[in-house]
């Protein structure tokens, strides 16, 4: 196993990852990698184990066996917040916004390494803390503005429309400054117009240097956006490749695309 980082080594590597719940095999000997600066999509039917893979990567679940490497370092076994700090940020299918916090607070809470983030620092206060807070809030406002949420800074997250909540979730994700973004069905439930908007945003993120691992049901979007596609079925990888290859793979047509279209 090679752990020496080199310029063209992948950003994220999964090696023989397995996880079962009780007797149920959710993920079985799964291996794939994500190249820096790419959009990789994870597709498969319901229960294929996609979200479990996300939970394994982010440390919300512990793998039964196998390794996960990020920038060539093992991250499996680390607690979720350390993995997030290493540069992996995720969104959730059910958003998991801080419902009774303002939109601004939702985004501001995600900014890493804030000065007043520890109890002691917040008790001591001081001018530098105030300045840092102003700066962070300005950054959060900037993000909200980018996401067309200007004017909603003080609204509670739960008071926003569903589309706005999805945007806010993206804003919170971006505020973490993570390098690898795991997006769990970012376009589900959105109007066609908003789906387009989201695709554009995802593209621009990659252009700005982010790497993206995507779970997506909408095949059209997957084909259009992805650089690489990994197909899962019942916890196992059954195919991977560039979108064209995968589209022509018969077994994929049968097990996944055939059913979902």
């Amino acid at each position: 196993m090679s752990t020496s980082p080199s310029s063209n080594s992948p950003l994220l590597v999964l090696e023989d990852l397995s996880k079962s719940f009780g007797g149920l095999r959710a993920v079985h000997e799964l291996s794939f990698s994500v190249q820096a600066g790419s959009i990789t999509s994870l597709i498969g039917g319901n229960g294929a184990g996609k979200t479990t893979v996300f939970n394994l990567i982010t440390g919300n679940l512990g793998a039964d066996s196998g390794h996960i490497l990020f920038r060539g370092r093992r991250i499996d076994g680390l607690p979720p917040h350390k993995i997030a700090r290493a540069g992996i940020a995720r969104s959730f299918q059910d958003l998991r916004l801080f419902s009774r916090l303002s939109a601004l607070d939702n985004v501001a809470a995600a900014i890493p390494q804030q000065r007043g983030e520890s109890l002691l620092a917040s008790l001591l206060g001081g001018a530098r803390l105030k300045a840092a807070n102003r700066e962070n809030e300005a950054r959060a406002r900037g993000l909200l503005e980018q996401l067309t949420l200007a004017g909603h800074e003080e609204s509670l997250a739960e008071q926003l429309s569903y589309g706005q909540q999805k945007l806010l979730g993206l804003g919170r994700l971006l505020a973490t400054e993570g390098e690898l973004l795991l997006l769990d069905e970012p376009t589900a439930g959105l109007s066609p117009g908003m789906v387009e908007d989201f695709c554009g945003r995802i593209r621009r993120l990659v252009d700005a240097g982010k790497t993206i691992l995507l779970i997506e049901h909408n095949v059209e979007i997957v084909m259009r956006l992805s650089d690489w596609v990994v197909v899962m079925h019942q916890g196992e990888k059954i195919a991977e490749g560039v979108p064209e290859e995968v589209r022509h793979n018969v077994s994929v047509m049968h097990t996944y695309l055939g059913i979902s279209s």
Partner: protein
Amino acid sequence: MDYVIYIGNLMALYATLAISLNLLVGYTGLISIAQAGMYGIGAYITALLALNFTHDLLLTTLLSAAGGVAVSLVVALPALRLRNEYFLIATMGFQSIIYSLFMNLELTGGPNGLWGVPHPQLFGFTFNTSLEKFLLAVALAVVCYVLALRVTRSPFGRLLRAVREDQTAVSSLGKSVYRIKFSIFIFSAIFAAAAGTLYTYSITAIDPVAFALDESIFIITIVIVGGTGSLNGSVLAAVLLILLPEAMKFLPIPALIAPQIRQISYGLLLVFFTRFRRQGLIGEYQDVLK
């Protein structure tokens, strides 16, 4: 006058206890019923120090707070791994164990408790009147309020509320939920223990019953009535709930059932505020307690 001052003293102590508990319950979503235990730790440490070594106010307060920190570490390390009802039940377990220690250790005087605590001294000044002790309690409440306000308005406070809303999401942002909960738990224990110090000095004799489970429930009643997530609410409710039974003593209720009626009124307040007015008297939002 001393009676009124004494009641004021109790109000200030309970305001401190309620504010410190509200940081856990209202801001962080940690429903703890071990607050009376932490309060008792401070009270016992103070009584033991004052009877045997020193009744210097600053020293006894600091050592009590240190004791509060030590005990809260013991409670927090396991309890903070649990969520919601499980956390509540674990704190109930610790509350009962702490009470049992007060009740049965030789050191704490067992059920007899400790008595004859001397008046506190600070830089050669002795606080020997009710009024002076009342002012100390008010000072503590003010310090607690100001620091709590500072905490809740800081980025750390934002994280507290974020933890209350969704712990998984907070950890996905690279923030250690455990560290956040741990720090606020300790902060809360420090003020509960300091309130215990002043309680000991104002009453001069302590016993285990003052720090039993009922006391924890009373403190959480103040927090709920005042409004979870509202510091002003905690202060207001501390004043009102101490005043309520005192005021009821002046009502023409038959003497024999008046005490039970007062207890029932506490029960009614708990039911009313959890069922119909979860934001408390002046709480932030309808739904903080959800």
